[in-house]
C-alpha cells in the first residue's frame, strides 16, 4: 500500500510535468509551420514498454537528441499502446519505441530502427508474478480461477505470452481466470499484484528488473513464478512514410553512438539499457508464432 502512495505522488508529479512538455511541443510545431527553412520537429512516440513515466529522464534524453541531431525533438508520451499505434497510423509520429506485438501489427507501416540491449542481449522475457503472501501457487496452472492483471491488449509479455502459454497447456485463456483486467502499464501490473488487487499478473522482465533496482520495496512484494522464453526486445521503429533514409540513418547513428558518449552512457544507465543494436525483423518471428496459435495472425 505504501508503495502505491509513492507511485500516486509520482503520478501527480508526472501530471504536472507533462504540461510544459506538451506546451513546448506545440510551440515547436507552430514554429515549423511558420518557418519552412528550419527542419521540422521530430516526433518520437513513447509507450510503457519501458518506465516511460520518468519525465526528468525523458527530458534529459530529449535534449540530448536535440543537441545531437541539431533539430527540435518532441516526445509524444501515451499510456496505452493503442494510442501510439493510432498516431503511427495517422502519420503523426516519425519514430516510436513500441512493443513487439504492435510492431508486428503495424509492420507494413514501419521500419525497424534499433533494438535495445538488456544485459547485452536484444531480448526480454515475460515474468509471471504473484503476491508474496501467496505461498500455494508455483506455476501458471495453479492460478486457475484467480484474478489476473494484464498489462495492455497490445503487449507481448503482458498479454500475448500468458495467453499463449495457457493455450499451449490446453486451457482456454478466456475462462481460465476468474477475472482479468488491464492496467495499461507493466509497472501498474506489478503495483496491482503487490497491492493484492490482482492475485497474479504478467509483466515485462525489463520493467520488473529495472524497478527491482529502483524500487525494490515494490517488487519485493511480488514473486516471479514463471519466466518465459526470450523474445525480441521492444523495438524502436521509424515510420516508412514520414522518415527519409537520411533521417533514418542520422537517428540510428545518434542512438547507436550513445554507448560511446559519456552523457549518452549516463542516459542509457538511467534507462536500464546497455545500448542499442541493429537487428533484422526476423527477431520477432516468435511473436508471430504465438499470434498464429491464438488465431491473431495474419492480422485481419
Amino acid at each position, binding site marked *: *500500500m*505504501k508503495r*502505491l*502512495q509513492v507511485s*500516486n505522488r509520482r*503520478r501527480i508529479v508526472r501530471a504536472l510535468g507533462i504540461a510544459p512538455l506538451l506546451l513546448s511541443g506545440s510551440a515547436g510545431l507552430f514554429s515549423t509551420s511558420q518557418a519552412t527553412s528550419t527542419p521540422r520537429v521530430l516526433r518520437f512516440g513513447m509507450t510503457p514498454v519501458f518506465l516511460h513515466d520518468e519525465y526528468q529522464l525523458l527530458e534529459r534524453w530529449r535534449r540530448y537528441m536535440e543537441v545531437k541531431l541539431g533539430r527540435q525533438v518532441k516526445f509524444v508520451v501515451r499510456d496505452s499502446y493503442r494510442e501510439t499505434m493510432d498516431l503511427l497510423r495517422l502519420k503523426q509520429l516519425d519514430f516510436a519505441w513500441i512493443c513487439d506485438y504492435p510492431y508486428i501489427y503495424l509492420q507494413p507501416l514501419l521500419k525497424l530502427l534499433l533494438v535495445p540491449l538488456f544485459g547485452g542481449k536484444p531480448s526480454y522475457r515475460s515474468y509471471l508474478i504473484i503476491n508474496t*503472501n501467496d505461498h500455494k501457487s508455483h506455476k501458471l496452472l495453479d492460478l486457475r480461477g484467480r*484474478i489476473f*492483471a494484464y498489462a495492455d491488449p497490445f503487449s507481448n509479455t503482458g498479454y500475448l505470452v500468458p495467453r499463449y502459454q495457457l493455450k499451449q497447456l490446453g486451457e482456454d485463456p478466456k475462462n481460465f481466470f*476468474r*477475472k482479468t*483486467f*488491464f*492496467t*495499461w502499464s507493466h509497472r*501498474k501490473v506489478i503495483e*496491482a499484484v503487490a*497491492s*493484492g*488487487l490482482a492475485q497474479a499478473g504478467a509483466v515485462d522482465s525489463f520493467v520488473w528488473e529495472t524497478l527491482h533496482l529502483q524500487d525494490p520495496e515494490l517488487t519485493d512484494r511480488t514473486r516471479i513464478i514463471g519466466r518465459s522464453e526470450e523474445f525480441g526486445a521492444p523495438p524502436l521503429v521509424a515510420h516508412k512514410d514520414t522518415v527519409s533514409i537520411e533521417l533514418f540513418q542520422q537517428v540510428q547513428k545518434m542512438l547507436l553512438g550513445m554507448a560511446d558518449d559519456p552523457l549518452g552512457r549516463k542516459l542509457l544507465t538511467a534507462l536500464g539499457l546497455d545500448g542499442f543494436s541493429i537487428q533484422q525483423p526476423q527477431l520477432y518471428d516468435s511473436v508471430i508464432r504465438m499470434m498464429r496459435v491464438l488465431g491473431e495472425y495474419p492480422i485481419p
Partner: protein
Amino acid sequence: MRRSILRRVFDLSIAHKIPLWGAALILVSTFSVATLLMYRSYGDLRASLIAGSASLGRTLAQTLIPTLLHDNIWRAFELVSAPIHDTIANNPVQPQFILVLTRKMKIFVSSDPNRFPMLTSLRQYGTAYAQLASRIAPDKIASPVVFEAPTSPYLFIAVPIVDGNTRLGTMILMHSLPALNFMFLSSSLSAALFGLLVLAILLPINWYWGYRMATPLLRLTRLMEQIQHEIPQQMELETYDYGDELGRLFSTYNQMVETLQEKAVLEHEMLSSERLAAVGRLTSGIAHEINNPLAGLLTALDTLKHRDNLDQRSQHTLGILERGMLQIKDTVAALLVEARSERRSLQARDLEDIQTLLQGQLQKQQVTLEAELTFTREVAIPAAPVRQILLNLLTNAIQAAGSSGWVKYSASCEASQFRLCVRNTGTPIAEQQLERLFEPFVSYREGGHGLGLWVTYQLVQQLGGHIEATSEDSEVRFLVVLPADEAPIDEVPVDEGTE
C-alpha cells in the same frame, strides 16, 4: 431518614454552607457547560466528518462511473486509493477504507484489496455489513446514507453511484470510530484541562468569598446570642467594611450595642443616684429628728454645768455627756450638708489658697501636690461649696496617695462647664467599691468615717453638677463637672437643702 439528612445539610454552619453551595454550583455549572460543549463538539466533529466524506464520496462516485461502465478495474483502484494516505492514517477524517460495490453488493474494487478483495460479497464480512447491504439495497437511497452498527468499529458513509437514472453501484467510505473518538477525546482532554484550570481559580475564590461572608456572620451570631445574658461587644468592622447589606447590618449592630451600653450606663447611674437621693432624704430626716432634741439637751446640759453645787463626780459625768452629745452634733452636722450663706462667685485664688490649708497634711504624709488652674476670670458658681468640694477631694487624695505619692488637681472652665479634676497615686479602687463610693459611712480606708465623699456628692448635686470616680492602673481620678454661667452673678440661688 432522607429528610433528616437533607435537614442536617441545611442546618450546617453558614461557614461550611456558603463554600459548599458555591463549590457545588461552580462544579455543576462547569461540568454542565463542559458536557454540553463536548456533546456539541462531538456532534460537530461527526457532522463535518460526514459532510466531508459525503462530498469526497460524491466526487469519487462521479469519477468512477466510466470505470464501472467499462470495467476498468485498475483505474477504479487508482481512484479509490488516491484519497488514502498512510501519513494521516490516524486521522478519522480520512476514510480508512473505500469500497465500490456493484448493484449485487459485490465488491467491484476496494482501496485495500487484501482486506476486501474484489468480487467478494459485502454480506460475507459480518452482520454489520449485511445490515449495511440491506440499508443501501433499495434502488433509490438518500445521499449519503450514514450507517453505524454496534458490532462494527466503523462509521459507514454510503453514496450511490448513479449515471443518469441508472444506479450503477454504491460507494462506501469507512471511517474509524475509535480514531474519531480518540480525536474527540484528545480535544476534550485539553478542554478538560482548561476546565480544571478554571476550577482551580474559581474554587479558592469561592472559598475566600465564603470565608469573608461567613466569618463576620458567625461572629455576629455568637454576639447576638450573648444579648440575653449581657451586652455583647461590638464587631470589629475591619473584618467586613463594605457598604453592602452585610456591612450595613454589622454597623447597625454596632450602633445597637453602643445604644445598649449607653442605656445600661444611664440606668446604672440613675439607680445609684436614686439610691443616694433616698439615703440623703433618710439621713437628713434622721439628722433633723436628732438635731432638735439634741439642741435642747445641749442647752439643758449647759445650764446644768453652770450650777455651783455639782460634786466632782457629777461634773465628770456631765463632761462625758457633753462630749458625747457634741460628737453626735458633729456627726449630724456632717450628715446635714449645709450650703453656706456666702454667695460669692468663684475666683482662682479661692482654689489656690487651699494648698496653704493642706500644707500640714502634705508634710506629714510626704505627698507632693501640683495644681493646674487654667481659668482666670470669675466663674458664676458659689465659691464656698466648690472650695469645700476641692478640700474634701484633696484630703481624701492625700490620705490615699500614701507616703511619697503625688496628688494633682486641675480646674478649668470651658463653654459654661466648670471642670475640677483630682488625681492621685495609690491603691486602685475596685469596681464594686466605685459603685458605693459616694454613700455615707462607706469607707475603704482605715480611720475614715465615710462622710467626706458623701458630703462632696451632696454638694455637687446641690450645684446641679455630677461627679464620677475612675480608677485605672495605679491612678485614681475624681472629676467634678459643674454648670457655670458666662457672667458672674452675685445672687446665685442655691438650694439650701437641709436647712
